């Protein structure tokens, strides 16, 4: 890969007290690709996201964003670096309208100058933000929900809204935390189509339990177990990897491969 990676992580180690949550993890995401992270519960998938988005401080490790080596970002710096994430379980504000929720994705208070944020937060800036939020909603196919409250939406609709919220800052790297969880097959198919379109605009990293879904959309798949990357490559490659079969099933039989390729939600 001579191409400059959107995001590249190496030697990432995270400890929670005595527990090693991530051990020497690496990850490379090329622009306009979808990278899937799979692995059993507690394998450390979400911890990778938390490290990238400043919620967890790594014990060691390097991160490069758009080919530039840098410090691990703090939460409020993500928009600046072109990173956006959705939250497990959606995380919409119940007391704000859908449109306002999406506007919140734009990192309104990220400016380095607080007073500029405060007084630059004029009606003009706000209406510009409103338009951007409407664009993002239209893009995620959720424009007609703009004035509704999150409580009035169906679960698949809230997923679309949370993607719109992640898109409003026009990220170059999008982190999706279990976007397919709780969706029916029909909605998963629609969502996969949406993501394939989305990858023309940014690189996408997805943490997901739904192996079929990951297999159908990912260009690269990383398999984690007990905080380590045990396999990486195309989905066809990793699903035949004996280490992966062992991790998922405790054995490395051929039937295991079929099982992994099958419904494994």
């Amino acid at each position: 890969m001579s191409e400059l990676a959107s995001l590249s992580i190496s030697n990432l180690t995270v400890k929670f007290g005595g527990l090693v949550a991530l051990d020497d993890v690496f990850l490379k995401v090329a622009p306009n690709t979808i990278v899937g992270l799979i692995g059993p519960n507690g394998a450390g998938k979400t911890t990778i996201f938390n490290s990238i988005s400043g919620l967890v401080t790594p014990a060691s490790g390097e991160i490069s964003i758009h080919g530039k080596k840098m410090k691990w970002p703090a939460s409020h710096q993500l928009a600046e670096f072109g990173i956006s994430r959705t939250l497990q379980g959606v995380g919409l504000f119940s007391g704000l309208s859908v449109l306002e929720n999406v506007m919140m994705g734009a990192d309104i208070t990220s400016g380095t100058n607080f007073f500029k944020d405060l007084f630059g937060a004029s009606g003009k800036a706000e209406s510009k933000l409103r338009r951007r939020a409407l664009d993002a909603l239209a893009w995620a196919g959720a424009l007609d929900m703009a004035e509704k409250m999150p409580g009035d939406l169906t679960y698949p609709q809230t997923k679309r809204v949370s993607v719109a919220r992640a898109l409003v800052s026009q990220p170059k790297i999008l982190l999706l935390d279990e976007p397919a969880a709780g969706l029916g097959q029909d909605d998963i198919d629609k969502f996969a189509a949406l993501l394939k379109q989305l990858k023309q605009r940014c690189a996408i990293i997805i943490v997901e339990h739904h192996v079929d879904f990951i297999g159908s959309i990912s260009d690269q798949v990383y398999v984690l177990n007990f905080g380590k990357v045990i396999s990486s490559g195309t989905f066809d490659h990793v699903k035949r990897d004996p280490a992966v079969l062992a991790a998922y099933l405790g054995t490395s039989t051929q039937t295991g491969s079929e099982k992994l390729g099958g419904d494994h939600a």
Partner: protein
Amino acid sequence: MDTFLSAIFSGTSRGAIFALVALGLVLVWRGAGIVNFAQMGQAMFTTYIASTLIANGNSYWIGFVVALVSGAALGSILDVLVMRPLSNKKKTELLSSDSMRAAIPVIASLGILGVLQALAGIIWAAEERGFPAPAKQEGFTVAGNVMPFTAFDVFVITCVAITLILTSLFFKRTGMGLAMRATALNQEVAKLSGIRTNRTRTLSWAISGAASSLAGLLLTPSSNLSPNTLDLALFIGFTAAVVGGLDSPVGAVLGGFILGMVISFVTFYDTPEDVFLAILAVLLLSLIIRPHGILGSKDVRRV
């Protein structure tokens, strides 16, 4: 009929000020999760600053503006120097229960009230002094009759109306206002959305400080200024906030006007001595009938 009109007018003007006090309390409650008992101590302090400026020959308006600005500054300083360290989870983790942790800042606010009152006593002496009104406090005369409505009442209502409109525009129509509403709803998710919640907290304290300073400036011309003058206003404002719903700014304003009317009608039809009792009755009734307040959300009581 005259008594009735007088009660209505006086209730509106007083109610407007209590609405401001209640709004100040609600802003800090929503923004920082703290009932700020020091609020009217802050207002008392900034009113003293205005009083000193005016006594030294400056115009009323200089005192007015300085009081509002120093109200915002004092609020911010208290948050950064006292409340922020006290809310630091790491520093308070020895205290096991969450409810204890939530109580610490509230108790600290009582401490701040004591310090501010003592300081005011030391700096300005504890005796009462008058505080000027920028407009006449005698009723308008219409066709030879003195009406129960004064130019100062007009000034009070105008000031409060402007404050309410500006605050509501700020929360509804600016990105920072949206960020503050989001933080009030869910601090964790707000943080994950990249909101610097420390800043929005401090901003809540600043806006609340300025609003209460305005309330102090509007209340003291009709009483007098002393370190304890505004204690009753805090009690009334707190009751107003509870009646309206502690987490609802609109409810706070509504509660303020309700309290204004109750106090005014008790004063005019009964006796001013019963005012305190009436407020207590309203507080008690409100807590029994509608504990989350008229417009408050049901799951608000944390402390």
